[in-house]
């Protein structure tokens, strides 16, 4: 029994299955961490001299934001992240923004116009971003004790602030 392409049916079926499997595997995220899983250590150094995700320190929750100088919503998120840092750093929140620009001059120009009171780290090769399989700019991930991934958030709109604050305060064990 042969198909219209001249191959036996079972061979054609095998080819189709292999193709479908290839498409399915190719569309899967490479290394996304599931919620609640421990994320790999991030030893990238931030501007405050600490690693992005320190093993020891006064922080209970780390809010990591992936951003770039050319991304408009990233610019929108900076005042809010400054606010979060001022409001909750004493409660154990660490805010770190990982920049993914390839050109460092763009980063410096952006930071002059949008000063950050929180820690900033540079990842021009997107090594950390690739490890977390970042799909949008900006993307934030919030990490709790024992490096457990608590939640992630894609993009940034002003109306997202309330929900993010509620979730961060919940992670810190504060009453919102």
């Amino acid at each position, binding site marked *: 029994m042969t198909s219209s392409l001249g191959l036996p049916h079972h061979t054609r079926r095998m080819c189709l299955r292999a193709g479908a499997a290839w498409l399915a595997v190719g569309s899967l995220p490479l290394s996304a961490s599931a919620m609640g899983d421990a994320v790999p250590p991030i030893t990238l150094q931030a501007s405050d001299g600490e690693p992005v995700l320190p093993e020891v320190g006064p922080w209970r929750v780390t809010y990591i934001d992936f951003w770039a100088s050319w991304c408009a919503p990233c610019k929108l998120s900076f005042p809010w992240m400054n606010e979060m840092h001022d409001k909750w750093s004493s409660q154990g929140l660490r805010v770190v923004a990982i920049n993914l620009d390839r050109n460092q001059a763009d980063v410096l120009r952006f930071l002059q116009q949008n000063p950050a009171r929180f820690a900033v780290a540079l990842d021009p090769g997107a090594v950390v971003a690739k490890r977390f399989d970042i799909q949008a700019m900006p*993307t934030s991930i919030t990490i709790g004790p024992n490096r457990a991934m608590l939640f992630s958030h*894609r993009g940034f709109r002003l109306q997202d602030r309330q929900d993010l604050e509620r979730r961060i305060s919940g992670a810190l064990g504060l009453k919102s």
Partner: protein
Amino acid sequence: MKHNRRFVLVLVIGGFLTACSGTLPKPWEKDLLAKPAMAMDSDTLEQRFLQHIYTSKENSAGGASVGGGGCGCN
């Protein structure tokens, strides 16, 4: 033999057609796309105005644009 050749031809054409589909730029690689020079129209407000007139006349909306400036966030 002839059928096998046809099958290989179909695979090759299929391969060519899907070759670029797996290499989408990553969000951090869209810096050039986000530049104003890469915009499809020069004046966003004017385009919105023209689009508003068009959709009013056509009694339909949507499908004319995509959100965002290449940052993949909208």
